[in-house]
């Protein structure tokens, strides 16, 4: 479980998140939603200890995040970032293998290799696992990055817009994997743009607007016409199709 208490985060001196207090429960899939620039990615980056908060604290299982030693934290929390550009020329398997670094420190054992292969299979990457990343399409690279995060096998998984560049089938595959991970007792937090996807897969939604929490709760509490219209400052229609909420904006 991750909690934030009165969390404020600044980016290059400008406040981006103000006084955010949240609880992201274990065993649930939480979706962060909201308009562009609301601070979703910044919140996720702060939860992933990649930016230090200006004030407030982040607690991982009731322990302040910044007191947990880096090597230990990497065994408990992993994060998929949006800019996934990597420097060296790596194959898909090389990249996914780096996900095992917190466990193996670079010496891959039998379990590490098995986990790498499992992550590659789960993201449907087996056919080009020996290809170099720079020869792949955007969606394939994105899946390789997600596989690397999965291979890290942490209790908390933070995914920043994992569906970027993914086609329909692979977007569904990734959301199903996120659900499986949550059902296995992990804390999964996903930044999503597609509210229909968020309503269909998430247990818990947090809506951010201008750096503050605008709404949070179950999908049926957040994915409603008044809440979303207010959140995005535009008319939103919520329809029910086959028992699921579908968000229409046109």
């Amino acid at each position, binding site marked *: 479980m991750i909690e934030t208490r009165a969390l404020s985060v600044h980016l290059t001196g400008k406040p981006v998140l103000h006084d955010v207090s949240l609880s992201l429960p274990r065993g649930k899939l939480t979706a962060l939603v909201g308009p562009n620039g609301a601070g979703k990615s910044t919140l996720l980056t702060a939860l992933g*200890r990649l930016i230090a908060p200006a004030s407030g604290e982040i607690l991982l299982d009731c322990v302040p995040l910044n007191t947990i030693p*880096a090597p230990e934290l990497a065994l408990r929390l992993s994060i998929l*970032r949006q800019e996934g*550009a*990597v*420097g060296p020329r790596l194959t898909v398997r*090389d990249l996914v293998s780096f996900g095992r*670094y*917190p466990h193996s420190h670079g010496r891959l054992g039998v379990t590490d290799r098995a986990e790498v292969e499992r992550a590659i299979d789960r993201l449907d990457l087996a056919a080009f696992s020996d290809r170099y990343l720079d020869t792949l399409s955007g969606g394939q690279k994105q899946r390789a990055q997600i596989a690397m995060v999965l291979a890290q096998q942490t209790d908390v998984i933070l995914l920043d817009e994992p569906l970027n560049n993914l086609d329909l089938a692979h977007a569904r595959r990734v959301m199903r994997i996120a659900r499986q991970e949550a059902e296995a007792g992990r804390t999964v937090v996903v930044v999503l743009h597609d509210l229909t996807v968020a309503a269909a897969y998430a247990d818990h939604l947090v809506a951010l607007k201008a750096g503050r929490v605008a709404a949070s709760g179950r999908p049926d509490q957040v994915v409603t016409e008044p809440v979303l219209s207010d959140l995005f400052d535009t008319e939103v229609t919520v329809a029910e199709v086959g028992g699921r909420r579908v968000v229409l904006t046109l």
Partner: protein
Amino acid sequence: MRGASLILLAALALLLACLAFLSLGARGDWGFVLMFRGTRLVALITVASAVALSTMVFQTLAANRILTPAIMGFDALFLLGQSGLVFILSGVGVAMLNPYLKFGLETGVMLVAALALFGALLRRGRGISRMILTGIVFGILFRSLTQLLNRLIAPSEFSVVQSASFAQFTAIPANLTWVAAGGTVLVSAWLIAQHRRLDVMALGREAAMSLGVRYDRQARQMLAAVALLVSVSTALVGPIVFFGLLVSALTHHLARSWRHALLLPLSALVACTVLVASQTLFERVLHLQTSVAVVIEGLGGLVFLAMILRRRKS
């Protein structure tokens, strides 16, 4: 395995170059020849390894293959420290200083200044053009400050610094060689032992942090190691700007790998082979005493231009 055979081949080439360096054109007492040339050989190998490893590690930290410590003005910084010491302590003071103490002082100044200036730069600016520009500006700044100091000090004191400000492989201070060699071995061993961590750091700051590397602390330690190695090579032979770039380009061309376990040792072997072989060729075969530095710099400069132009095309 490809990596192991590459290392073996490079080691063999280095061995041949060393044998040629020690034996070609030797006349008279072998004991004296071997001792005299042996010390110089140790100095050349020390300088080459220091340049190679500092360049490879710096390029990993800076996340690109065009920047080198020399291009970013590291050795200009070392020379500035040297002139600064003469300015403060006066030429007589520096000339009378124990050479080890002098080297220690210069290295200390270099460490502090390099960490202060380049530590912040590495953390913030990842844009390559900004880094190159900053490096060039730093280099010009350090060189101009050095010149200013050199004009302010007395001509006799100037002669103390002057000899140190040009690259030369023929007159290497023998007393420093063994200290420098020892230091280089230690620092290199430490860096090579960090090869797995360097692999992760090459992924970038945030990726390395998510994988549990204390990036900022590690990067500072490695930058300190780079500064030490640059101090060693600059103190022994003076500033060599493009040699590191030449070595790193060659190494990446040969290795085609991201593993520092291969890259670091291979780069050291390649650098030593190039330096010892060209020194042998110029000194023993062509009998040209001073042109090695010029030729190596020329070749390295061409590689630099080629890399920049190729990057612009792609």
